């Protein structure tokens, strides 16, 4: 860690991390929140202490929030509205085999 002046502005806070928790083997990691931590090890441990206190998980991913690239909210109409009338893309027009879970 570099020496940092003690002040209340956000530059002196620990960086923000996003937390993804896998609830059980075979399922995917799901975003469940965020937290502040000084480094990756601290982020994992804080995620364990903050987000899996009630046995919510068996595996944790963390990633620095500023490493996430997000779509622009201003692009929402252009990006997502054209899919509205393409219901044929949903796999609802044929029966799924019983053995297929989690579609």
């Amino acid at each position, binding site marked *: 860690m570099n020496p940092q002046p003690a002040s209340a502005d956000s530059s002196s806070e620990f960086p923000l991390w996003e937390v993804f928790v896998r609830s059980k083997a075979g399922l995917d990691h799901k975003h469940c929140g965020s937290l*502040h931590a000084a480094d990756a*090890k601290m982020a994992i441990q804080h995620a364990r*202490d903050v987000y899996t206190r009630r046995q919510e998980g068996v595996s944790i991913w963390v990633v620095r929030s500023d490493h996430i690239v997000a779509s622009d909210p201003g692009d929402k109409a252009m990006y997502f509205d054209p899919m509205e009338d393409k219901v044929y893309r949903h796999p609802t027009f044929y029966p799924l085999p019983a053995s297929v879970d989690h579609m």
Partner: protein
Amino acid sequence: MNQPVFVSGTQQSIVVPRDATTIYLLRIADTCLILAQRLSEWCGHAPVLEEDIAMANMALDLLGQARALFAHIGQRPGIDLDEDRLAFLRDERDYFNVTLVELPNGTSGRRDFAFTTLRNAVMATFLKLLWERLSSSSDEAVAAIAGKALKEARYHQQHAGEWVVRLGDGTDESARRLDAARQRLWIYVAELFDADDVDDAAEAMGLGPRWSALHDAWHAEMAILFDEARLPAPTTRPSAFRSTGKIGRHSEHMGYLLADLQYLQRAYPGGVW
């Protein structure tokens, strides 16, 4: 005007048997209980929210370990005491925790995160080694408690250890505070490894190890941690000062701690959730 009526209720202090098994197990249970009490004092006051939750989690792990042992001790032949009475209704001299865990979280009424963190690392390393050995105790209940507690202690050691490195290898200020904490708590460490008749008896009956037998492994793990944290190598130089919490003679801080800990059960005898 009515005369006050004095009744003997459950708030009266209890007396515990002084056999080696009871004392050996109470030393462990009380050490967990009193450290849990000190850690819980951080609740709402930790440097950051995430660490606040982490410390409360560790306090609850330690409290759970103490509860399991109290429940077991209270059912031993010739004893009929529930965990609440064992935890809350003894006088100071009947608590057998090491003095180190009863020391306040800081000095002059100011909490010090470096002190708490280093104490957590010292105690988690010690308790991890103790639970490892206790998991093969001749007392099956103790072995079962140890099996569960060992996982918790491993996490406490990792969490506290990484903070010790962050502070020691961090800024000038964090390194200065960590070293001050080391100097303040180190004279209390020797007590952990003092051996007496209680230890001898526990070792002989297979209940658990002499605490002195854990010293070398503990010292080796602390030396690695101190090296990473850029602290001077841990020494256990002979010293005229010896803390004596393990035999029931406590520091001046213990009475205040017990007043906090016992207040509710003394004021509302038998009170439960």
